[in-house]
């Protein structure tokens, strides 16, 4: 197995799916010759040509709108929105059509498209380049919302997203693009959408998170174990929506305590749904209030103040301790 960055792993997923399936087509701004501003589609154009790796005009609604048409026609467009902060330009198309054409046509049509887009902060970027608004998509019926947390699961989930018969919004935590390498098998590997993963077992508390936050979550768990003897069970959602809460429920029914971590603003954020699900299914097992460690409900600051905005190991450790102390 080769050690790959997330960028390389995502590239591999697209390359192999394109080799296997001529319905798979890449569209987006700068995805061709430039290989994407983060190089995720690097050199795909030289292998597959301009017909299959399409540099589009600068128009997000145009990208998603034509992708919907292609998907209805029977292709499998994988389109890139350059930053998730610009994905709101596609929102009306996604909500009104991608998410609904299956229903509207009573099953005659469906829209197997993937919207790949880099999300999240921590890379000292400009305004609109650090946001995490997965909740918008997660709250939209008819759309699946996926966020990987490392090269290997990024590759495997993207493969499944491409094969999925329904629209998938695929957020790529840009802070992880080159943060670390993982063994990624050359041979085909996929992972079902809709299944959170148990990353580490523990008895004292359950930490639920996803995406780039898995890094400080794991660090926090290490620190808690070493310094405080607290053993956290860790769950990586991977698919935010449709959310399967089976694993979360069983874990918290064991540990009795939970902390939820995400970069997104707290209020009406993904963490709220996790708390609500825990209350619905596991109320009587909860021994302490579930804590949310999240971004604040403010405009994401420029990078001089970014560290103060972002959840990090310290904040997570603190929250876990508070959850256990009570």
């Amino acid at each position: 197995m080769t050690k790959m960055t997330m960028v390389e792993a995502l590239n591999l997923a697209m390359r192999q799916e394109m080799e296997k399936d001529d319905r798979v087509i890449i569209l987006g701004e700068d995805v061709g010759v430039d290989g994407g501003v983060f190089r995720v589609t690097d050199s795909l154009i030289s292998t597959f040509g301009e017909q299959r790796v399409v540099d589009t005009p600068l128009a997000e609604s145009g990208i998603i709108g034509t992708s919907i048409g292609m998907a209805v026609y029977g292709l499998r467009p994988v389109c890139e929105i350059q930053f998730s902060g610009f994905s709101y330009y596609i929102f009306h198309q996604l909500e009104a059509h991608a998410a609904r054409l299956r229903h509207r046509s009573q099953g005659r049509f469906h829209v197997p498209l993937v919207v790949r887009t880099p999300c999240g902060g921590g890379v000292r970027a400009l305004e609109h380049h650090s946001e995490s608004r997965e909740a918008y998509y997660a709250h939209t019926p008819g759309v699946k919302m996926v966020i990987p947390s490392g090269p290997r699961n990024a590759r495997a989930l993207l493969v499944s997203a491409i094969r999925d018969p329904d629209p998938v919004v695929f957020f790529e935590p840009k802070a992880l693009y080159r943060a670390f390498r993982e063994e990624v098998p050359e041979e085909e590997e996929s992972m079902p959408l809709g299944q959170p993963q148990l990353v580490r077992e523990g008895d004292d508390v359950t930490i639920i998170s996803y995406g780039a936050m898995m890094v400080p979550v794991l660090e926090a768990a290490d620190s808690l174990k070493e310094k405080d003897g607290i053993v956290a069970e860790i769950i990586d959602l991977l698919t935010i929506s449709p959310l399967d809460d089976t694993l979360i429920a069983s874990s918290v029914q064991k540990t009795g305590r939970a902390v939820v971590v995400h970069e997104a603003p707290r209020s009406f954020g993904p963490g709220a749904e996790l708390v609500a699900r825990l209350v619905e299914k596991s109320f009587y097992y909860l021994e302490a209030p579930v804590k949310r460690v999240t971004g604040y409900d403010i405009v994401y600051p420029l990078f001089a103040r970014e560290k103060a905005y972002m959840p990090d190991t310290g904040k997570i450790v603190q929250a876990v301790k508070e959850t256990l102390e009570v």
Partner: protein
Amino acid sequence: MPRSEIELPYRIEYLSILDENGNLDKELEPDIPDDILVKLHREMLSGRRFDERMLNLQRQGRIGTFPPIKGQEASQLGAVATLKNSDWMVPAFREALAEFWRGKPRENFILFYGGYDEGGAVEEGRNDLPVAIPVGSQMLHAVGIGMGIQYRRKDDVVMTFFGDGATSEGDFHEALNFAGVFQAPVIFICQNNQWAISVPRSRQTHAKTLAQKALAHGLPGIQVDGNDVLAVYAAAREAVERARTGKGPTLIECFTYRMSLHTTADDPKKYRSEDEVKEWEKRDPIPRFQAYLTQKGLLTDEVVEQLEADIAQEIQGAIDRAEKLMAREVDPLDMFNHTFAELPPSLILQRQEAELDLSLRKEEDRHD
């Protein structure tokens, strides 16, 4: 070098062949097979009658809000009649006649506006997208389908419909622009019926015509008399031919008029004069075409009379079939069927919850 005019490849033209007074421009008269001419007439008439019946049904509360077509029969049918079966059609929400031409059963219209999702079904083999209500959003889908056709090296084309109001939406321009860049085989049919609910065409844009919007994207654009089915057909056929032979997209503005309500929830008296409507009644697309066909020997008064009877019966049949379906008890749980290909666990639970709720209700009803 200094201050000079830039030559653009396209000029905007206007086309009219059979005018409201029955004058025919022989030179431009398109060569259309007799059976198509007769079918066009039949469908126009049938559309007019269907509209009238639906208005009745709506007023009786038997269906909900719907958008009438009256006045736009020629511009819809003249355009769509130039398509092959394997071509694609992407309508807005006022193109029921075009959809019927393509094979949509009339009862589906009634079901749809009667509140039954079933009415949105698109039959296998009919390459049309369902109705798109969000204004301006559907043209991009047509372009994507066109790009798919190019990718598969087919010689099919896509025709998409939209109103004058829709040309103000950014998505309209993104669609024209993508179509231009990729030279996709798309025919953009603008149904300029002069009104977007209460907003007149003059307020929609400072441009003299809608056809000239094509120039922004380097495409040919033409304005046609949308109440002249011959002109619409001729312009559409030319555009279809261009698209089919790889010569790219065209924008056609059909200059027509919404003679009736925006939808059954609308009261046009608030915003437009009776006089304006009367003026346009003179330009009604049906009488002039009927006169033309009569002159051509393709129609007689008796034939028309018989036609009216046939149409009335046909419409009644559609109503009967739809009402029969609507009279049956529907299973509300069907609403879970088409969100995803497969129900995810969270929706299985919600469906169970809904099922339980429905059964509790039934029980209560029994006890009441």
